[in-house]
């Protein structure tokens, strides 16, 4: 799906502030890849580089991000560098940006914001049928149909975040990049949404990259896990293996710092009940 080969990414046109340092990883078809790491370790930067969003002054100094999009629906295969991804946005790949508060247009109803940008294949049929499909889709996220006629300011922060997840997933793309999609949610809703995202991924059989600093989240739903530390990848592997046998000191600290319940790590308790 995506091959990130030894990329160094940073910001600035005059100077260059390095944020991601010689990172290599692959995002496979039909998998959920988790990225964890402390604040400022370059998670969002890596996501932007993969998505091909250079609007923030982001620059790939060296290395390549190559994508190969195979659309089983049309049989079409597209190969491109991430700098050439823009025509594929909201078609082959979609994005859930970090921080949900001002991501939605304050003057547009939610329904219009779901529809705006949808690829033609998802818009087929009458607008009433489309509305019904969106309403059903939102119901899976615990959102009522009235949300479609609401303006963003009428929704809570958590509802907005769910709307953003739903918008990105409704596109039905080959790759979804989710940057901290559940941070504003309480634990119960967070779990519901995560399970919903897993279910959608299993159904669409696409790839999901999930950024979160919450290891519990990764333990619950990711297939593989990447740990970032100060702009570098310090550890990656199948999630269960990383948890069972952490190699890097930073990862060990992270896992050790998870709260314990009855002598077991909380993640094991949560994981067992999931």
């Amino acid at each position, binding site marked *: 799906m995506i091959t990130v080969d030894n990329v160094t990414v940073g910001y600035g046109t005059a100077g260059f502030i390095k944020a991601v340092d010689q990172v290599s990883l692959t995002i496979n078809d039909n998998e959920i890849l988790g990225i964890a790491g402390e604040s400022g370790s370059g998670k969002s930067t890596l996501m932007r580089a993969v*998505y091909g*969003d250079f609007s923030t002054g982001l620059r790939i100094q060296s290395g390549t991000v190559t994508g190969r999009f195979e659309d089983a629906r049309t049989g079409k295969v597209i190969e491109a560098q991430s700098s050439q991804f823009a025509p594929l*946005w909201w*078609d082959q790949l979609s994005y859930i940006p970090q*921080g949900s508060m001002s991501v939605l247009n*304050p*003057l547009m109803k939610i329904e219009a914001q779901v529809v*705006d940008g949808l690829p033609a294949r998802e818009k087929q049929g009458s607008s009433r049928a489309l509305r019904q499909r969106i309403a059903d889709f939102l119901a899976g996220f615990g959102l009522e149909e009235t949300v479609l006629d609401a*303006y963003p300011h009428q929704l809570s922060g958590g509802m907005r975040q769910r709307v953003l997840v739903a918008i990105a997933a409704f596109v039905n793309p080959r790759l979804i990049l989710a940057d901290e999609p559940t941070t504003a949610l309480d634990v119960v809703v967070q779990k519901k949404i995560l399970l919903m995202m897993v279910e959608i991924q299993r159904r669409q059989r696409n790839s999901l990259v999930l950024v979160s600093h919450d290891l519990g989240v990764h333990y619950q739903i990711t297939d593989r896990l990447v740990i970032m530390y100060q702009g570098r990848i310090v550890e990656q592997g199948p999630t269960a293996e990383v948890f069972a046998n952490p190699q890097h000191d930073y990862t060990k600290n992270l896992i050790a710092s998870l709260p314990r319940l009855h002598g077991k790590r909380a993640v094991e308790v949560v994981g067992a009940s999931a």
Partner: protein
Amino acid sequence: MNLLRYIAGRLVVYILVVIFALTVLFFVPRLGPTDPVEAMLAKVASQGAYMDAAQVDALRQSLADTFGLDGSLWDQYGAFIKRIVLTADFGPSLSMYPTPVMELIRNALPWTFGLLLTSTLIAWVLGNFVGLLSGWKPNSTSSRVMEGIAICLYPIPYYILALLLSILFSYIWKIFPLTTTIRGAPWSWELITSVVWNSFLPAMSIVIVVFGWWVISVKAQTTALKEEEFVRYARLKGLGDARILSRYVLPNAILPQITFLALQIGLMFNGSLITEILFDYPGLGLLIYTAVLQGDFNLLMGTISLSVIAVATATMIIDLIYPLLDPRIRHR
């Protein structure tokens, strides 16, 4: 429900503003050292008419009547407000006796109204358009040129610009008329072209000065909006420039401009006073000017009261339209 409360609140403010303005209008001339009745009497006397004491007294009485100067201050105040609010009667004009002040105003008002409405609209639409484009693509040649023009025009004092226009286009090149003369029967094509013809320069002069202000203000809005997360998100959705501009940037940039429009109406109205004098344009401004020059007390009271009410009403209407356009206020 909240919208109703907003409307009610705005109406109360409107009424208070109008009453306050009328009160000031009532007291200021009465605090001044000149007694309008004695001034009028002196004027009549200076024209050489001989009057005996009884005649002078009779005239004094009738003048006091028309000026509403009978009774205590409170009686006068009550009568004054009642006359304006209930009957809109300002008595006869003294300089164009016996034409009623209201008739003069009724003839002048459409001119001022038409001039201000069209020139404000043109300036607003043009200014928003240019400001939006130059904020969106600040480095393109066309937006630099347009913005350069706007910034050069913006600081020119209005009366200099107006004089320049009228010297250039009515005196040197005799394209437009120097003073207003309207021809044609009511609602004929000839009348319409004649009105447009005569209004062109005054309208242009207003458009030119106001345009720059809008460009600068909308450009600032657009520049800020470009960095807003929802605009960046729209771009990450793969939406094209035209769609992002029309659906995401434009509505959010325009909305605050509507409030500015409400604030500007008053200034524009003051400006139109100068426009009308400079271009000899038969609107309310020229009427006020005439009233001052001729010492026509009734006409002055009438024109100024009406200006206050007109500006307050226009501002209120825009303020009432605003929440209909902004869902954050509409659905609160």
